[in-house]
């Protein structure tokens, strides 16, 4: 933008700029999910009894299992980043691979939950609670799916030998995004499953 010639002029500046870019993107994400959390709050205050009855139809054990799955996946990202900072590219690939596997487990559990809800005739149109449930968890699920893609790309970069102890920016940035996906679920789980 400011007319650098070719490659990044200063690696530290480039790293810090990339970080600010990701945090800016995450700011828009906070507001995207924030609009839905606002809708949740408004309708919850308007229909407290309906939320109390409907939320009990969700399986809080499956919700808790998925919480543990995502927290574990975040730890894998932390360990993967630590590995590449020590120059261990193969270890980074293994840890990020584990993250992708756990993301798939998360989505599979979500799939069984959705199937059970549909089986019992609970659809997004059923009532405002389930509209919000499917909208919020669905949007979050799309983020999990995108995260799997981004992490796969980082593994690909690593396999091609592009990442090292001195350059691991893509791994760091994908990690920030993945932790955010975990963070959103940390709020979704109690709000939808535990305190309808």
């Amino acid at each position: 933008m400011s007319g650098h010639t070719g490659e990044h002029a200063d690696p530290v500046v480039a790293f810090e700029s990339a970080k600010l870019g990701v945090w800016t993107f995450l700011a828009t994400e906070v507001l995207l999910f924030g609009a839905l959390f606002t809708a949740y709050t408004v309708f919850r205050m308007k229909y407290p009894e309906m939320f109390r009855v409907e939320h009990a139809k969700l399986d809080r054990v499956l919700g808790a299992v998925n919480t543990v799955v995502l927290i574990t996946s975040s730890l894998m990202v932390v360990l993967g980043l630590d590995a590449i900072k020590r120059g261990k590219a193969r270890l980074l690939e293994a840890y990020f691979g584990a993250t992708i596997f756990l993301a798939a487990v998360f989505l599979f559990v979500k799939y069984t939950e959705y199937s059970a809800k549909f089986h019992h005739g609970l659809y997004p149109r059923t009532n405002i609670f389930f509209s919000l449930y499917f909208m919020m968890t669905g949007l979050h699920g799309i983020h999990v799916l995108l995260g799997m893609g981004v992490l796969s790309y980082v593994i690909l970069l690593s396999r091609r030998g592009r990442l090292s102890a001195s350059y691991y920016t893509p791994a760091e940035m994908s990690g920030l995004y993945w932790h955010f996906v975990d963070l959103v679920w940390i709020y979704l789980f109690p709000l939808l499953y535990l305190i309808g």
Partner: protein
Amino acid sequence: MAHGTGNPRRTGIAVFVALLLLTAVTVLVSYVDLGLWNVVVALLIASAKASLVALFFMHLKGESRLVWGFALFPIVFLSLILIGTLTDTMLR
């Protein structure tokens, strides 16, 4: 680029264990009827977990004030949206 405070693996695992414990607590508390306090406890625990993730996993702890600014400004805007919307819908 260096975040050279302590052993990152040990910190990561300690935060991970804390997150698991807080998850267990929030699930167990949800089986006890505390009335309105259920909401308060659940949100406090969720915010404690979110803070752990942001501070250690996203390593906000140790970041510059500029990054902190970028991280906090959407939360200010979200509060404005929430407060603005609720004052409208509740006073209608």
